[in-house]
């Protein structure tokens, strides 16, 4: 088991390295750097000024060197700029340069500085992730039970009317992307178009004080999309289990139908969808980007959009590392949970 987890962690580290290197490469393309310099400094900077701006801040060092610095395996730059000021990657504003550490990268716990938010990447990532975590929690809390219930109700009597209507519903929801369902939901429940105005079309207030009114629509928008898929998986799995021999055994033992479903079929039927639920996480993160932007909820997805829009190199890198981490941790949980649910597989 320990070996298995270790191997998963190694894969995670390797993936993070590859991904961050790609992000690093793209964000360090000169046109992107130039754009960033202009937003940071002054939009009317001439080419020369841009060059010295970048030069002074160590942006023009060779790519591997910069990547090494970010990782913390290469000493941070210390450059005496063309304007005479000495800048160093590891200098903090209130620190005497000579006391600054030589290395400052991920390995030293220094995640960098966001040029967009003018603050520490680590701080931004954690607060935004926390906000998104709240969103995801409610999404899961709504999506998983409803999807499982729909799937089980549909699958327990395959071909019945309940099955057909629930299956249609699931297909429709998976086929509708978040930006469509989000807009429709806002139009129906939050605008004057239908006069319903039950919920708010923006979730900004939910960041401090989430409640049904301001949080319901974004949660539903994401949940509804993921729900259809899980429900269909559960239905297929349930329908298969219901035809198994051991269900017949249970029936002929005199077990009542509700108990057959709950005690005999459920656990077996959940083995397949469980993996799917865990693998939904990456896709949900995807949806989070759209929904957070749409509802102006300043979470992780929103931060990603901001970082990408402003070529905020270190924030983007931070976001990438955290995303890889989230995806792989969910996979690990999914594997372990699978083993737990399915007694036929044992890890040791």
């Amino acid at each position, binding site marked *: 088991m320990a070996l298995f987890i270790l191997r998963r962690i190694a894969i995670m580290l390797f993936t993070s390295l590859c991904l961050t290197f790609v992000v690093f490469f793209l964000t360090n393309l000169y046109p992107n750097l130039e754009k960033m310099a202009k937003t940071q400094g002054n939009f009317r900077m001439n080419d020369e000024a841009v060059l010295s701006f970048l030069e002074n801040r160590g942006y023009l060092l060779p790519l591997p060197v910069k990547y090494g610095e970010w990782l913390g395996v290469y000493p941070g730059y210390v450059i005496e700029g063309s304007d005479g000021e000495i800048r160093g990657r590891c200098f903090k504003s209130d620190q005497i340069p000579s006391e600054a550490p030589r290395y400052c990268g991920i390995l030293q716990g220094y995640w960098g500085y966001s040029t967009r938010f003018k603050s520490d990447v680590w701080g931004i990532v954690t607060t935004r992730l926390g906000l998104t975590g709240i969103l995801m929690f409610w999404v899961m809390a709504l999506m998983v039970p409803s999807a499982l219930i729909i799937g089980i109700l549909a699958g327990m009597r395959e071909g019945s009317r309940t099955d057909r209507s629930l299956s249609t519903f699931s297909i429709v929801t998976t086929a509708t992307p978040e930006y469509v369902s989000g807009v429709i939901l806002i139009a129906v429940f939050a605008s004057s178009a239908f006069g319903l105005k039950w919920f708010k079309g923006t979730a900004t207030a939910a960041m401090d004080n989430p409640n049904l009114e301001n949080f319901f629509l974004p949660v539903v928008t994401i949940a509804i999309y993921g729900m259809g898929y899980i429900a269909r998986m559960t239905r297929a799995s349930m329908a298969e289990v219901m035809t198994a*021999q*051991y269900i017949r055994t249970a029936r*002929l*033992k*005199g*077990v009542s139908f509700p108990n057959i479903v709950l005690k005999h079929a459920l*656990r077996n039927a959940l083995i397949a969808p469980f993996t799917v639920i865990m693998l939904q996480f990456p896709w949900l993160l995807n949806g989070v980007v759209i929904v957070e932007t749409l509802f102006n909820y300043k979470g992780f997805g929103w931060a990603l959009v901001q970082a990408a829009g402003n070529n905020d190199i270190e924030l983007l890198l931070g976001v990438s590392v955290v995303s890889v981490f989230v995806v792989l941790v969910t996979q690990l949980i999914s594997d372990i949970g699978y083993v737990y649910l399915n*007694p036929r597989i044992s890890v040791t």
Partner: protein
Amino acid sequence: MSKISYDGPILEIDQLSISFFTRLREIPAVMDFSVVVQPGEAVGLVGESGCGKSTVALGVMQDLGVNGHIVGGKIKFKGQDLGKMSAEQLRDIRGNEIAMIYQEPMASLNPAMKVGKQLIEVPIIHEGVSEKEALRRAKEVLIDVKLPDPERILQSYPHQLSGGQQQRIVIAMALMSKPSLLILDEPTTALDVTVEAAVVDLVKDLGKKYGTSMLFISHNLGLILETCDQICVMYSGEAVETGSISDVFDKMQHPYTQALFRSIPLPGADKNSRPLVAIPGNFPLPHERPSGCNFGPRCNYFKDGLCNTQAIPMNKIKGFERHFSRCSRIDEIDWDTPISNSSQFESLPPGDVVLKIDNLKKYYEVAANALFGSSGTYKTVKANETLSFEARESETLAIVGESGCGKSTFAKVLMGLETATDGGILLDNENIGSTPIEARDTQTVADIQMVFQNPFDTLNPSMTVGRQIVRALEVFKYGQSDDERNDRMLQLLDLVKLPRAFATRMPRQLSGGQKQRVGIARAFAGGARIVVADEPVSALDVSVQAAVTDLLMEIQRKEKTTLLFISHDLSIVRYLSDRVMVMYLGHVVELGTTDQVFSPPYHPYTEALLSAVPIADTSIEKKHIVLEGDIPSAMNPPSGCPFQTRCRWKKDVPGSLCETEVPPIKTLDGGHQIKCHLVKSKLEKMEPVIKIAAE
């Protein structure tokens, strides 16, 4: 719920008809079926696959699925009509009054639920007892079904138990509420013979102990004889003969029953002096039944105008109390005529040695940890441990043993599908043991051919029968031109007694027996000198088994082939083989002529195996030997003698020799070999297992 008290018959099935409705047509699966089960009685239901046995069982359970319906007749349980009961009443009866045991134990236990939980459910539902009380009862029943260590078993998941143990759990579950009626649907088909014998024994004893009536479904007449009081023979959806075991076995009154008994190898049948009589033709599909008597087209006593005009009713046999037969000519047929058999053959003297196996070993390396493997630890599975024997021209050598004994592995090595780990296979003094099939020359490949167990997946479904045989001829480089090969193909069809018109048929248009004939034709296409038949008839229906076996024998006689016949069925082995090799866990434990192996002295394993095989003959007396426990896993074989964990003779060997040392091969009179530590005087004291009772 308490049990219904009632004095009459436990189960009365009266003119029951069940149909399945598909998009295309109505399939009448069971027609006009009647049977009565008295309290404490065991009724056997025999018939070939597809004749409707399980449908009757599910009909009794009222669990026919969405498309199955009872279209006529009544099923009364303790006097109450099951068809008129509400879902609730049925639930009270299922598991409480009527319990059912199925063929595949693994599939009928919930894989994600501990055995204990599955067991205690029954009394909790039906009697509302507390969990503690239910657990206590579960333990009691587990002891009754002779499972060791009930505490541990209750805490196990089904996959942690062996097939035999699982089947005992299923039986225990059925007995939890002490039902009045137990329906067993081929309860032992998935088990090995020695395990089957123990399970059958158990069912019989428990039936007596609890006074349970039983409906025992099987295709094996021998098993029915051992377990039941009454028998009902089914053919194509109908009961054709019912009566007590002795009436039906000894004074049968229906041509099908008679034909069935003549086609199974009973002791006394012999391939040369008293060959089996196969039932001609094939079993009709439900929608292709003839008018009048269903058995008409295959019946020797068929009479036009009498047998094919109207449906034949069940007739009571005069002078018997509960003996019925569905035949209109009962009184006209002389039931005592001896088998008017035709052909008797000279037994052929075996010729030169063609195949010599010399200390052959085959080991497999398997990763000890399958899921997260590759971490280094390997285990060796010794599938074949030093095999040595010779096979001669026109000889039939049977290889007998239960699952995992290494029979199929040996066949694979011989065919070149695997290579030997050590030792040699000498074909005409040339060692081919380590030559894989790709590296063998055409002649060697053509010389050693195989007939497989399952005819259904060895033929290419998208190629005509003729084309497949011609392909084989091409591979063996037979003939100069296509015409020549075509001629040979037609001759081969003649050889296996298929009409020449079958050359243009697709495999799916053939029945199982016909497919197996095509497989045989293909094996003999290149003039094979050695044919390995791996359970060639065990996937076929009883009534066609005899025909295929006889065909194989006939071709062998004609072509002087060496036949290696792999089987677990000792009856058929005794019938057709010249010499027998008994294997257990990769070891050859006994080798000798058929007479030597089937009469004492035996190897202790052979003795148990012989006692375990059910024989459908009322005049046979068998010694009762029940082996404890299951066959050990080949991954983890016992030390010393492979059979020591189950051997009843072990105590007659001094010291702990059996546990510590693999016994040497002892050669007795006439070249009879036994791998056992027992001294000669002990071996000589063994009594025959099978005795024909004096009339």
